[in-house]
């Protein structure tokens, strides 16, 4: 581990505790608000941040593309479309279900389009993802145009909204899905070495006994489930999944086994900080997606400049 990496590891615990304390205790809320509103929101934020950064790191590795991010395969658009469609039909309570179904159907479609003569093709996958994503984006625009009264809701889905009001039942469903979510993250962590090997070449990976086709399909399916859950509850939050893995790789050069957990931590902390700023530092609550880009981009530029010899 590099020196800065070690320093970071030592620093991260107090920083994390500091950010969480700030998030939960800012403005001295009464216990009801703390436990019933802020703690659930923090859970949603942490789960979302972790999932986005994790998928970003896996996709960038698996697709050998530094621009890969959780939304590149169009699944987020499909998920947002499903969720917005439910809202437009007046079934606001079923929005997460719509998002989930949207994600799964989009995934099946993209996966089918990515096959060429029964073989998987990396660039076909990305092209299929972008096209399918565009298709659903236009669907969202259409719903937005036809249902003017739902504009606020659609905007909050497209720009990220962690301020969801849970009912008790929805909260229990969310907790159940979180367990699933974390299990998938653990599974992805356990596949780190295989993914590293696979990123070199399929042939090499196959020669050391990895079932490349199967693993790729599993990663794709399970990451879509993650995206479905995240988009259903928090909408589309850009930037976290794209930039977090890059920042981690700049700070802690190493294998996926090291990068992946660091992505989880950084993704969670970054999104918590961004949501704190979105809801507490401004006079009016801002869409969190705007804040992630507004603070993330300059930070990344600074990192790039600093690295120059």
């Amino acid at each position: 581990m590099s020196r800065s990496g070690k320093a970071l590891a030592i620093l991260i615990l107090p920083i994390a505790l500091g950010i969480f304390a700030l998030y939960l205790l800012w403005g001295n809320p009464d216990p009801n608000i703390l436990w019933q509103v802020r703690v659930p929101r923090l859970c949603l934020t942490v789960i979302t941040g972790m999932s986005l950064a994790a998928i970003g790191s896996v996709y960038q590795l698996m697709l050998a593309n530094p621009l890969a991010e959780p939304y590149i395969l169009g699944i987020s658009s499909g998920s947002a479309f499903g969720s917005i469609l439910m809202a437009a039909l007046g079934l606001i309570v079923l929005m997460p279900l719509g998002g989930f179904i949207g994600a799964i159907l989009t995934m099946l479609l993209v996966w089918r389009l990515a096959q060429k003569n029964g073989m998987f093709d990396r660039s076909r996958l990305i092209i299929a993802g972008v096209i399918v994503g565009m298709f659903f984006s236009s669907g969202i625009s259409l719903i937005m145009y036809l249902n003017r009264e739902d504009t606020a809701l659609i905007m909050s889905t497209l720009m990220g909204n962690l301020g969801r009001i849970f009912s008790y039942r929805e909260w229990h469903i969310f907790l159940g899905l979180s367990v699933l979510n974390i299990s998938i993250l653990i599974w992805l962590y356990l596949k780190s070495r295989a993914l590293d090997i696979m990123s070199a070449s399929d042939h090499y990976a196959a020669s050391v006994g990895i079932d490349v086709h199967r693993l790729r399909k599993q990663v794709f399916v399970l990451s879509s489930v993650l995206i479905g859950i995240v988009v259903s509850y928090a909408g589309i939050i850009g930037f976290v999944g794209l930039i977090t893995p890059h920042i981690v790789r700049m700070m802690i050069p190493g294998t996926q086994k090291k990068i992946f957990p660091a992505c989880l931590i950084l993704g969670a902390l970054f999104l918590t900080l961004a949501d704190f700023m979105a809801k507490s530092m401004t006079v009016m609550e801002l869409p969190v997606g705007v804040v992630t880009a507004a603070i993330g981009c300059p930070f990344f530029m600074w990192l790039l400049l600093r690295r120059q010899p």
Partner: protein
Amino acid sequence: MRRATSFIMLLLILMSLSCQQADKRTDEIRYVVLSPEIAEILAALGLEDRIVGLTDECTYPPSLLKIPKVGAFGAIKTENVIAIKPSLIFSSGLEQEGISKDLERLGYQVVSVYPKSVAEIYEGIKRVGAITGTDKEAEALVQSMQNEIDALRQSNAGKSIPKVYLEIYRDPIMSVADNSFVGELIEIAGGNNVFDTLERDYSRVKAEDVISAKPDIMICYSQDSLQNIRSRKGWQDIPAIRDSMIFFEDSINPDLIQRAGPRIVEGLRKLSHIYDIYRDSIR
């Protein structure tokens, strides 16, 4: 070359003809009304028979329903407006500012009335009266509204002031500020709107701010159900929810307090009635 010249000549003739068409006005009085609020004002002044075109939202009084429509509030079909040859067009603010300018450019007389407070409703009614030659009726309408509101204020004097939370949207939740039109009505009727200031008149609010504000009454226009509101995490301690002081569209029609027209008097009475229900419940 000659062909091109004659083509351009023809084009110029056509263009001048089309300009004339737009400028040509009949002496007949024909109003196209793009805003439901002005439609209500015109109807209250007894001018319904002068209206020849409306938008989909102009639903009150019900007799307006049979008048042809020229589109929706935010999506006016310009061609439909032109087709009915209006002598005067009444428009509103917000999304209609653009279309008002377009119609003016086409040579139509456009009057924009967009009241944002009770005082501006009075002004608006008088202005519409002056333009349509019904000054007396307008004056009388304003006077009767003022009298009724004064009487309501007097009858509310000395009563306790309930805290009111009005939810206009769910996901993200949105409410109204004191200086919004609805906020003003909530307070005139004898209540205290819980959000004194917001960044916009109608703005997104935080769930925790609603919980901290402890409203006594909740008016829900966000299409959420009683059962869902009751099961929102952390909302059980809010007095309005704990004591079932939640009112929906069937208790008070949103148009009565969201449309800046003559029916606000009825809306204020309904609000005042809701506050009385609350006051009786705590007695």
